[in-house]
């Protein structure tokens, strides 16, 4: 049981990394990014191809993460421009359609060019044993990376002027613009940053499973559920929700199968919307 829970936590942290990006892009840009899983997969596939080509593993992973960021930057400055011309619900709808289309295009292309990309990482110590429990080194490494990414995001949002500007736009866009803060430029930065976080998740995912074309959709769905349960405006809520749902996912997949697990997770999201529409931790943060 305990190894399954640990697996769940490891996986949940990756979900949180994607979910927090969905949360930020939604809070700041008013767009619900349905191609977020694909942002992640692009990072993983890039890293896999570079490692396959003989590049140093760490360098390849860094470049993979940056590829996700670059992709996010390009999407924000091109595909999403028509959506940004509108406000509120119209922007949300147009954004949904545009990013859903993008996810099909990316999946189709990856399926055609790199149908079976996989990250093969040889670590000097494949596993470590702590208190009688054996954990894969890769699990430890990806979890540490995810937690570090979260801490850095928190420090950026709470401790830097730019991070405060990001929060100010989420809270009151008119007020932010009156202070001389450009919502457009900050939004581009956040889409890029969220894509980088997704890239970290994608590279980490690639260490454990193959990067097939169905992974993108799967990651998007998990991340959306985590974002809803955690509260689309709360970052610490997203982290906690990711870990909890990761555990539920791992335990339920092991005992009752993946199909029913997805139903359980979606039910959790529905229940959250009914009981606490603004997320689990909405009143704490």
């Amino acid at each position, binding site marked *: 049981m305990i190894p399954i829970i640990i697996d769940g936590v490891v996986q949940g942290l990756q979900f949180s990394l994607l979910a927090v990006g969905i949360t930020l892009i939604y809070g700041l840009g008013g767009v619900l990014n349905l191609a977020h899983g694909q942002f992640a997969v692009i990072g993983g596939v890039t890293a896999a191809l570079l490692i396959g080509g003989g590049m140093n593993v760490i360098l390849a992973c860094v470049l993979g993460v940056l590829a996700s960021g670059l992709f996010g930057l390009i999407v924000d400055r091109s595909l999403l421009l028509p959506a940004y011309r509108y406000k509120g619900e119209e922007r949300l709808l147009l954004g949904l359609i545009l990013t859903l289309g993008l996810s099909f295009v990316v999946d189709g292309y990856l399926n055609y060019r790199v149908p079976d990309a996989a990250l093969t990482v040889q670590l000097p110590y494949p596993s470590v044993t702590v208190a009688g429990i054996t954990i894969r080194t890769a699990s430890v490494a990806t979890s540490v990376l995810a937690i570090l990414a979260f801490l850095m995001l928190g420090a950026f949002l709470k401790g830097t002027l730019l991070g405060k500007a990001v929060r100010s736009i989420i809270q*009151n866009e008119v007020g932010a613009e009156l202070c001389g803060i450009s919502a457009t430029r900050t939004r581009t930065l956040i889409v890029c940053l969220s894509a980088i976080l997704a890239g970290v998740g994608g590279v980490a995912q690639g260490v454990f499973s193959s990067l097939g074309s169905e992974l993108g959709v799967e990651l998007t769905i998990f991340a959306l559920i985590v974002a809803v349960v955690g509260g689309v405006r709360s970052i610490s809520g997203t982290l906690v929700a990711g870990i909890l749902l990761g555990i539920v996912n791992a335990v339920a997949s092991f005992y009752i199968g993946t199909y029913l697990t997805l139903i359980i997770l979606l039910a959790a999201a529905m229940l959250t919307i009914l009981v606490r529409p603004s997320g689990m931790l909405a009143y704490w943060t």
Partner: protein
Amino acid sequence: MLREISLEVQSGEAVGVIGPNGSGKTTLFKAIAGMLRPKSGKILFDGLRLDGLHTPDVARRGVVYVPAERELFPQMTVLENLELGAYANPRDRDDQFRFVFSLFPRLAERKRQLAESMSGGEQQMLAIARGVMAKPKVLLLDEPSTGLAPLLVAEMYRQLSQLKAQGLTILLAEQQVPHALAFCERTYVLENGWIKLSGRSSDLLGDPAIKRSYLGVG
């Protein structure tokens, strides 16, 4: 709706805009701040055109709008709200902090408090203070007395007088006409989008039409 209006504010001057609800005061301010685009005409500041600029760029040029709705960041502390006010020129931030806290000592006492947890009067002070943090060349104050008790309004105008004494240029929209006329050297009277009257505030005080419609005497 505003039609064919022409206004002028000299450096260091406090100019008032008075008129009933819906006369176009807020429309005028939003046009200057870049939140609404005029269909025709020009808005000039220091010889450069402001019309056509986006709101953040107008603010960066030193024309700072403090709307009646305040538009604060509710879940941020007083300190963070002020810090963001100085977003465009962080170099002068420490000086501006000192100045703002000497002007509004109550904000210094409450600097760790969330903006949403403060009273209406304190929120209004914070909105003005956030505008001042930008070290503006012109401050556009839209109905700063909205929702404040009379005693607080008097206190706020004493604080605004200190700002004026520092040489800040102020354009003020106000429904509480006696306050506006006492505070501003010159005043424009707006009605249905037209400038009906304008002149020195002291002359307007004696104008029979103003007395009748706005001061409730005569």
